[in-house]
């Protein structure tokens, strides 16, 4: 009997190769006659290009080609998700070209590409390119960029406004706020972050002159989408003439979803060289300057309600910084993925959000782990604490009073997808919030917090506790919503899988999703092993190559476990049904009489009459005795479009201690109770939570992209951008509640983003709680020692 590994803490099958250096990333791939590309980037954040002189570079040793913007025959990069979908809302769209032609809009925008025999020669030649720049005034702050007199980036975007989008009941929210007993207002800055995957981006372009076909190896989360966008929207070549391959991808966090300028550059470069492959590998500095950043919202928040702790309205106006030009789905993140979950897990009857998307002289902003939902969670969870503070109620108690009750699902939140124009109405389908909070509070010793605060004072410390009772929307997404006019990005978001059973009974599963370190090769194998009753070792999971995998939308938005896995289960079900029919033929029984138990196909009532899955595969693959009308081979493909998103939730509790003298914040305890539904592999779930929690805590305490007023990226390397270290993080105390998702057969919800969505608000709330004795109501992140100390100083000064 094969051991069923579904739900078990199985060690990841990927890890042996990844931790022994046997992984195969883009930069590990070396092709015959490969040339190397270096991209020259703008040193100015805003400038016109008067001329570019590449003569010296072309004469440098080893140089094969130098391209500038005028040499690129392609369209600008696509922007696929306008605010408000394709209906109604004006989006003033400017996207990057492969290389800038007339002007640059951020420090790091590419202006020339050098192709040489070696990377060193390409870099040396790049330095000899002379650009005649006309520097222009710059603006880096989204709110300031919309003010009169601000430098203007684009002629078609007056006041640098990309769009003005709103959702919810404006009048209702207005009335509720006007009539409320208590209204709390606060300006919140959700600072810009620089994602830091261990592997930077990179790609190899190859044009095959013999077949007129292009191949690109890319560190991407979305090879199938890239094929579509590059072929149809950028290069103008038929889609079947382009093959996209993502080998091992060393982390992404959203950054590798998008279409980047280097893709068309390396493909065109290879064509211009008559078919020599061309490799470009991003340096960490380029990664900071020219791969997408995350967050960067300025939000004016109002939360209203009564003194008894009933919250009646949330209204926000948010300025979302989208950078100098738009990334692939930049406008979709601060609109749909943000404001539609702004009320979190609370039954708040009136919600209204206005979002202004803004151009500034910074690199573009797009989806970063959580993508809109961390920003929304930060707003609503800070709002609940601010409101609790105002009415003198315990923040946990305020939350409890406003949770959506467990008997009110499906719940239609007032800014949610039930109000979307056209397409499917999406409701929050399940949840039970209080038990998760109760468990977390008990684990954290919440009832004893007053005594712990007093004890900390004896050590010169201020202790604070912060909650985040977050709600996630995962498993993106029903195509009826995401493809709908007026909301989504005009594309589907189903998923696919193919299961092939070879003659020996070994199984190859190819999937349309694309791992970046999540352990898909393990979790899919656990699922298929369970479905077919075979050992994981007999299953290999293949992905990442548009030639050989069914079309799929890739991995992001915590969608693989709920959407991708369901496609795989469907394909395995088709295999099982066909095997069952063939077993009936082999056993001379009717199909209805064949019962399946793991890998055994038995005749009901005659337990000795049975065939194994492997025997069936062998016979059906050889097909010397196939019944009339039955095709040989076990090979089935399935597509799955989910009817709803999934809705993970939970309560995170952070406890911090602040050094009164220095303002240094020490994260001393972290408790998380998450409800991600059923778990395919609890160890991998823990790992996702660990990483996500640390990433979110990083934003609260340490991380922040800093641009100077001139648009120079001052936090331009890891010497100045603080990625969290393990030693700064306490042991993470995890527990769970389990409310299975009703929308997929596994009852899973996805966990890739939950930690990052929850933890920022928990840690920030803890720091603000610790500072209450000073009369401090709110501090913006990152809550560095200097920020905290200065706030304490001015509070002391005000009290003196």
């Amino acid at each position, binding site marked *: 009997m094969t051991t069923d590994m579904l739900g078990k803490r199985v060690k990841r099958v990927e890890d042996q190769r990844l931790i022994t250096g046997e992984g195969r990333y883009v930069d590990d791939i070396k092709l015959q006659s490969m040339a190397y590309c270096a991209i020259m980037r703008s040193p100015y954040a805003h400038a016109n290009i008067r001329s570019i002189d590449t003569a010296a570079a072309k004469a440098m040793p080893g140089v094969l080609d130098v391209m500038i913007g005028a040499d690129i025959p392609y369209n600008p990069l696509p922007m696929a998700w306008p605010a408000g979908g394709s209906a109604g809302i004006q989006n003033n769209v400017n996207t990057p070209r492969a290389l800038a032609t007339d002007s640059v809009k951020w420090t790091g925008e590419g202006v020339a590409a050098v192709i040489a025999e070696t990377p060193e020669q390409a870099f040396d030649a790049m*330095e000899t390119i002379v650009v005649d720049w006309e520097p222009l005034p710059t603006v880096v702050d989204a709110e300031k960029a919309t003010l009169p007199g601000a430098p203007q980036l684009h002629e078609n975007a007056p006041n640098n406004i990309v769009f003005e989008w709103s959702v919810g009941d404006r009048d209702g929210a207005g009335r509720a706020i006007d009539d409320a007993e208590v209204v709390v207002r606060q300006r919140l800055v959700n600072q810009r972050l620089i994602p830091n995957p261990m592997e930077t981006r990179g790609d190899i372009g190859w044009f095959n002159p013999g077949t007129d076909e292009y191949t690109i190896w890319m560190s991407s989360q979305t090879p199938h989408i890239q094929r579509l966008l590059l072929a149809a929207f950028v290069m103008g070549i038929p889609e079947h003439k382009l093959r996209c391959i993502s080998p091992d991808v060393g982390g992404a966090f959203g950054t590798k979803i998008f279409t980047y300028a280097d893709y068309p550059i390396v493909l065109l470069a290879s064509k211009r060289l008559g078919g020599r492959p061309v490799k470009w590998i991003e340096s960490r500095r380029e990664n900071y300057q020219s791969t997408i950043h995350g967050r960067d919202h300025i939000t004016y928040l109002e939360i209203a309600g009564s003194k008894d702790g009933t919250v009646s309205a949330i209204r926000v106006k948010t300025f979302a910084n989208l950078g100098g030009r738009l990334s692939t789905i930049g406008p979709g993140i601060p609109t749909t993925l943000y404001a539609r979950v702004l009320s979190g897990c609370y039954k708040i009857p009136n919600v209204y959000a206005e979002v202004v998307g803004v151009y500034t002289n910074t690199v573009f902003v797009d989806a970063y782990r959580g993508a809109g939902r961390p920003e929304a969670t930060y707003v609503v969870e800070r709002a609940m604490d601010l409101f609790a503070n105002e009415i003198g109620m315990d923040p946990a108690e305020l939350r409890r009073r406003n949770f959506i009750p467990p008997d009110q699902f499906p719940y239609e939140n007032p800014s949610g997808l039930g109000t979307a124009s056209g397409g499917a109405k999406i409701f929050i389908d399940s949840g039970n919030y209080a038990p998760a909070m109760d468990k977390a509070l008990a684990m954290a010793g919440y009832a004893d917090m007053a005594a712990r605060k007093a004890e900390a004072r004896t050590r010169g410390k201020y202790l604070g506790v912060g909650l985040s009772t977050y709600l996630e929307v995962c498993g993106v997404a029903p195509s009826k919503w995401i493809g709908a006019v007026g909301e989504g990005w005009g594309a589907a978001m189903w998923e696919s899988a193919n299961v092939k059973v070879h003659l020996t009974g070994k199984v190859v599963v190819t999937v349309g999703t694309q791992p970046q370190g999540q352990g898909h090769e393990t979790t899919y194998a656990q699922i298929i092993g369970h479905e077919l009753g075979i050992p994981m070792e007999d299953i290999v999971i293949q992905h990442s190559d548009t030639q050989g995998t069914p079309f799929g939308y890739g991995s992001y938005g915590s969608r693989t476990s709920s959407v991708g896995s369901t496609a795989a289960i469907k394909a395995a079900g088709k295999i099982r049904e066909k095997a069952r029919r063939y077993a009936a033929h082999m056993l001379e029984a009717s199909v209805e009489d064949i019962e399946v138990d793991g890998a055994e196909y038995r005749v009901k009532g005659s337990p000795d009459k049975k065939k194994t899955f492997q025997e069936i595969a062998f016979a059906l693959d050889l097909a010397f005795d196939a019944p009339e009308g039955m095709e040989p081979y076990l090979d089935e493909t399935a597509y799955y479009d989910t009817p709803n998103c999934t809705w993970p939730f939970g309560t995170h509790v952070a406890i911090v201690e602040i050094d009164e003298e220095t303002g240094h914040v020490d994260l001393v305890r972290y408790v998380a109770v998450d409800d991600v539904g059923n778990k395919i592999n609890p160890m991998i779930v823990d790992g996702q939570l660990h990483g996500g929690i640390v990433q979110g805590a990083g934003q609260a305490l340490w991380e922040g992209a800093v641009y100077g007023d001139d648009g120079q990226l001052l936090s331009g390397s890891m010497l*100045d951008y603080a990625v969290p270290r393990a030693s700064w993080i306490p042991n993470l105390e995890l527990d769970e509640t389990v409310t299975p998702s009703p929308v997929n057969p596994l009852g899973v919800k996805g966990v890739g983003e939950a930690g990052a969505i929850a933890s920022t608000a928990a840690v920030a709330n803890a720091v603000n709680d610790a500072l209450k004795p000073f009369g401090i109501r709110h501090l913006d992140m990152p809550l560095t020692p200097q920020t905290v100390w200065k706030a304490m100083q001015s509070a002391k000064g005000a009290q003196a």
Partner: protein
Amino acid sequence: MIPAAFDYVRATSLDDALARIATSDGAAKVIAGGQSILPLMKLRLARPETLVDIGRLDELRGVRRLPDGRVAVGALTTYDEMVRDDTLRHYGLLADALPNIGDVQVRNRGTIGGSIAHADPASDMPAILLALDAEVVARSVGDERTIPITSFFEGAFASVLRPDEIITEVRLPGGRNDVGSAYRAIEQPASGYSIAGVAAVIGARNGDRWGFCAVAITGVGDHPYRASAVEAAVLAGSPLGDAAAHATDGVTVASDIHADREYRTHVAAVQVRRALEAAIARLG
């Protein structure tokens, strides 16, 4: 992140290395552990024509006690070797600071000589050596001189070391039983360099006065310095907190995106007081 082209020479001896840099007119740079110069070269902020690698010259490595009781640390001794060295174990400053310098890779490769030759304004090692009144021995072709560490640093990445000189060793005073010492720092979280790092050595009380006081500060000014105003105040009997308030007297305090002048000035004083308190606690 690819350096400009350069030549590489592995020196066969100290004299060989000295001869090579003496004739290069500044175009050759010495590399030891490479933890400072290689990142600068990759960013093309440094472009030496030639790197002279002294990393394998065993004559510059290791810790030995001199006949007069002082301790000589070879310039190529790594942070990790210092952590493990029995003789150096008794220096409280080193025990406090070394395990927190850089990361494992930096501690395995980075050297004491390289650190002070680089003269980073926020590096920890210079502050430690300043508080210990160390001496730096520098050789050039046909010459050797001993430079008190207190007159070694001149500015950010600038010292009195000449382009034709190589640091051969650093000499520490012999371990004393009548002092306590401690290192305290608040770090810039991204780089791990000190926003304010303080090395303090204090001598046992002689009547109602401290017998000795040395305080050195890094990360605050344009180079690490001895806080002589603090030392004088401590020796004059000021309470530690009052003495610490002189931490930045006469210093142009640095300001950057991590810590502005006001905050740095404040935490320098806090760390001075804390380092002194910790040093006193170790007096026993």
